[in-house]
């Protein structure tokens, strides 16, 4: 009897341990596939860095191109061998500055209005409008800049002052493009401030404005800073509005009413024509693209770091 039950116990133990240690190949394969999908995004980043870096290296190794000269001179004329990046960079900075001058004050004002002042019914009508503004393709904004904003500026400031292609109208329309982005991120940050802070301020006799500007905004400052940096990053990378409305030739000028090509507009114009591989124009695209990628990546990392380090956690 004892031997029989001992055998049964062994069998039982064996079958139970088989069940526990059963390797399910299907599960492992699927898990591997899913891991690959997750890892795929790393390939994309590596691909960007590798491909852009490789061709950019080719660009800088060409005899006519000198890294120091690229970063310091102010003429971009490839056919005579001048590769100063400043005309393009300057135009990018100017359009970004004009866009931010519009988007930051208006965006924050709309966000403060939505989160502090607006009744729920108004909020529910305004938020879809903002979403619509954010969803319009950028080429439509480009058309708007060329056919509405530029004639408007020419009416206001005079046809001699404002050229047909100018960075001002591109910058203004870019501001309208970025406004919903800043508004939604700022509004998220403002809503995250707990009601208790506001109520405490009201309890001490503050007016609505004082609560909004002196209590809520400082508390949400990290989110607001992140929103502004993301907006700047978006403005730097914006292509179609400037390609259509800002101008088709590199031009180092501080006058916003003159046409000037930005980094992104230049890339689009060069690649729209017939490109032979390994020509100097082709390689210059990669150098400029790498520069853009590094700048926007740095800005995005900074914005995430700001939120992580300076976000005030209350509850």
């Amino acid at each position, binding site marked *: 009897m004892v031997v029989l039950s001992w055998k049964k116990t062994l069998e039982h133990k064996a079958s139970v341990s088989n069940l526990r240690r059963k390797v399910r190949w299907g599960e492992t394969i699927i898990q591997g596939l899913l891991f690959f999908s997750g890892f795929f995004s*790393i390939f994309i980043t590596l691909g960007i860095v590798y491909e852009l870096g490789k061709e950019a290296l080719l660009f800088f190794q060409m005899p006519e191109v000198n890294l120091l000269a690229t970063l310091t001179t102010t003429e971009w004329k490839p056919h005579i061998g001048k590769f100063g990046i400043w005309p393009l960079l300057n135009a990018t900075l100017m359009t970004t500055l004009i866009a931010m001058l519009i988007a930051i004050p208006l965006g924050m004002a*709309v966000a403060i209005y939505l989160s502090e002042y607006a009744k729920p019914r108004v909020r529910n009508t305004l938020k879809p409008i903002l979403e619509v503004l954010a969803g319009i*393709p950028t080429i439509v904004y480009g058309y708007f800049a060329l056919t509405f904003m530029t004639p408007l500026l020419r009416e206001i400031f005079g046809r001699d002052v404002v050229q047909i292609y100018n960075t001002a109208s591109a910058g203004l329309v870019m501001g309208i493009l970025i406004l919903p982005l800043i508004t939604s991120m700022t509004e998220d940050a403002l809503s995250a401030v707990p009601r208790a802070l506001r109520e405490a301020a009201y309890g001490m006799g503050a007016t*609505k404005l004082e609560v909004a500007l002196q209590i809520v905004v400082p508390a949400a400052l990290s989110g607001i800073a992140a929103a502004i940096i993301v907006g700047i990053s978006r403005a730097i990378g914006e292509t179609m509005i400037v390609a259509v409305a800002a101008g088709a030739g590199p031009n180092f000028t501080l006058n916003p009413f003159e046409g000037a090509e930005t980094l992104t507009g230049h890339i689009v114009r060069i690649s729209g024509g017939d490109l032979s591989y390994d020509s100097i124009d082709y390689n210059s695209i990669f150098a400029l*693209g790498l520069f853009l990628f590094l700048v926007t990546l740095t800005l995005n990392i900074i914005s995430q770091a700001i939120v992580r380090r300076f976000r005030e956690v209350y509850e």
Partner: protein
Amino acid sequence: MKEKVVVEGFADNLDARNRKGMIWHVLFQASTVIGIIALIALMLNIINGAFGYVAYEARVDPDTLAVDGVPLTDQSKDQLVALLQSTLSSGAYNKLENDKPFADRSREEVYQLVLERIVRPEVVQVWNLWPSLTQADEIRTTLAKEHPEAELDFVSWLSTDFVSRPQTSEPFTAGVRTAILGSLWTILFTILLAFPIGVGAAIYLEEYASDTWLNRLIQTNINNLAGVPSIVYGILGLAIFVRTLEPLTSGEVFGLVDPTTANGRTVLSAGLTLGLLVLPIIIINAQEAIRAVPRSLRNASFGVGATKWQTVWSHVLPNAMPGILTGTILAISRAIGETAPLVVVGASTAISFDPSSPFSKFTTLPIQIYQWTSRPQDEFRSLAAATILVLLILLLSLNASAVLLRNRFSRKY
């Protein structure tokens, strides 16, 4: 008798503070109004450009082309083909025959060719909708004085013909059918690439990934990729899909090369490039959808003995699918509107034939808008405005379906 208690120094400047508050309140409201005005100006500007009077002169009067008393509009296809053959040079006629044999073309297409090559209406002037409606008489009188030969027509640049005609270089016969089909073919490949990988990555990050440095790196990387400018994706696509993978994307490997181009600037490259672009969007949205499925559902499934994948496939995914689909539709909307990456990858500038395979040349709606906007003549601006309306209608229906999906299937647990 009750005395009013007044605290010293408290209510001194209350009026000033309240006034300041009201001023700022008005400023905040004004900012909101400015945003709404910008949107309305945008829409009105586009509608203004898409309709209006056109004055045009025909190089050859269509009436002189009547054969045996049958006017041009009623002639049969053979008569029209004969007309083309007799009027065009043999080189031009043969090129048309090579592009697409006349036997394959419909009568409509041949008629359009006759208009385009022989009658050749030339636009003299274009007016927008607002001047057309308010100054119609002045326009007529000035036109009669300056261009007595010209005809005046009220043209609605956006019409059913516009949507169904292929692209041509003449403003009157141009249509966006090529562009619409190009957009649809491109989006097909975008979704084929981005949806499986995106949902797979989201499932991995939410269900399987533990908190190691690698998984945190993957998550950070995805968040950063969402912020990369779209033109960088275009450059990446140019380097990888168009150049390095040229045998694959041009169809050499499959023996299906398009005889006129034989390079990597095909619909496939465009779709794959956009797929890379929208991948982070799909991943982030799918992650949120999967996260919203309550743990209790998963635990209940484990409780009846399901494996992890069985749980994900039968319980988590079906419940998260509406959210995932909404995210996918948003990604499609983003991809349809993208111009810059496709210009870099190499959309064709002059193409009048519908894409017939993954390896054909292509153009898309935003690229069409870009090209027409860049031309200096006014009539192309009107065409661009009409194309923008087509694009916006397409996007509006997509977004409306996304909102409907979201509202119908959002269940509260």
